[in-house]
């Protein structure tokens, strides 16, 4: 065809190949809108696929764990009797706790609202770490809505469509969270590295951080609520300029196996 013949003209070919780059450089807002539109349009297909994948995954896991389950059943029955005794004790402690709470006039943390969501797609790129979730603006998810897993902090929403949203993961190299060491109370900044590990920077040289310490969000940035577990210190090193130290943090969350998530947003949002 004539178009193929025209492809042989190098200038036209280079121009065509560079056109998306040009759009990306000159109209970033258009790209954001186009991506959101694409995600919104493909969300029902991705959700359907995720349901199939999830069923297959769970069935396989059940089959594999069958012999283990039998053994566990015996052990659990033995534990059950012991736990029943402990339950009575806990009930008493619970009642006492409620009484003490009312005495101290402590309020439950009601400044945040939460919503359950599912991961329906992972970023296909080898260079960025994003996910798509099945909740969007219609369900109250907006930009900067924080995503939490049962193990700890996952990331935050960067753009929300009607029934889906795109979220940046903590391990993406553009991700930043203000964090605190639960043991020594040293404050630093958790940065994604694009690898399975995180880096905690801006630590004082005098910081008493140790390998094995738990790191959680400090709440200082204003986006991430305070006290959400992030990871455990894996290694400590000195900055290149010898001004401070940094820590390599192993996240609690299995980022490649994200399924159910909790979206947390401030009640004042949207």
């Amino acid at each position, binding site marked *: *065809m004539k*178009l*193929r013949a025209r*492809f042989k003209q190098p200038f036209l070919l280079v121009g*065509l*190949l*560079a*056109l*998306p*780059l*040009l*759009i*990306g*450089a000159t109209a*970033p807002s258009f*790209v954001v809108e*186009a*991506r959101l539109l*694409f*995600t919104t349009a*493909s969300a029902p*297909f*991705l959700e359907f*696929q*995720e349901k199939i*994948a999830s069923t297959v*995954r769970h069935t396989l896991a059940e089959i594999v764990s069958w012999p283990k389950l039998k053994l566990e059943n015996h052990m659990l029955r033995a534990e059950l009797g012991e736990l029943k005794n402990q339950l009575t004790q806990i009930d008493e402690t619970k009642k006492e706790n409620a009484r003490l709470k009312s005495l101290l006039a402590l309020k439950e943390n009601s400044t945040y609202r939460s919503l359950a969501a599912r991961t329906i*797609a*992972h*970023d*296909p*790129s*080898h*260079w*960025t*770490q*994003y996910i798509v979730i099945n909740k969007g603006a219609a369900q109250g998810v907006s930009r900067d809505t924080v995503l939490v897993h049962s193990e700890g902090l996952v990331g935050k929403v*960067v753009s929300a469509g009607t029934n889906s949203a*795109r979220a*940046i993961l903590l*391990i993406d*190299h553009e991700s930043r969270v203000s964090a605190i060491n639960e043991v020594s109370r040293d404050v630093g900044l958790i940065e994604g590295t*694009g*690898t*399975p590990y995180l880096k905690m920077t801006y630590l004082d040289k005098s910081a008493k951080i140790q390998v094995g310490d738990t790191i959680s969000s400090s709440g200082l940035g204003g986006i991430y609520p305070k006290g959400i577990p992030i990871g455990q210190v894996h290694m400590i090193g000195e900055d290149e300029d010898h001004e401070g130290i940094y820590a390599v943090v192993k996240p609690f969350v299995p*980022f*490649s*196996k994200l399924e159910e998530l909790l979206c947390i947003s401030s009640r004042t949002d949207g």
Partner: protein
Amino acid sequence: MHFLSNRRLIFALFVLVWFECSVPSFFQFRTIKPDFFLIFIAFYAFKVERKNVVVIAFILGLIKDLFANSFFGLETISYSLGAMFVKFLSDRLDRDKYVVAVPSLFTFSLVSLACYAAFAFASGVGQVFDLGVLWRIFYVSLYTTVFGLAALPVLEKWVKPGLGSKQYELF
């Protein structure tokens, strides 16, 4: 571009995009995952129709750019340049032999990923072009090639007949 009116090809691309958005994360190892788009492009160039491979790569790159969150256009240009390279290889090498197709897939993956990293570095939007990035390029290429070893025969048996590849007359 009459080949794009091939409904089976459109369906194959649709399934491929669906596959790429969901399956690689199950095989992810320390943020390294196989790239099924690269496998498909190499398969198309070597086993189906090498003339249209750049257009296929351009479309797949554009789709990946829309799904991913990296700088828009980088995936498109790196896939397209990689496809030009794989077309160059398929024009000159014996396309029927797996001993040619598999190493070509590895080289093609290296070229595409290196193009991405180089463009990202040159435009100042990506990570620093350091040893970590080079290792990442190598590991992704290697992992993709390992998957390609299994995927190429499967694609040839089940997908190639549906795509209606050209039959060349020898005499």
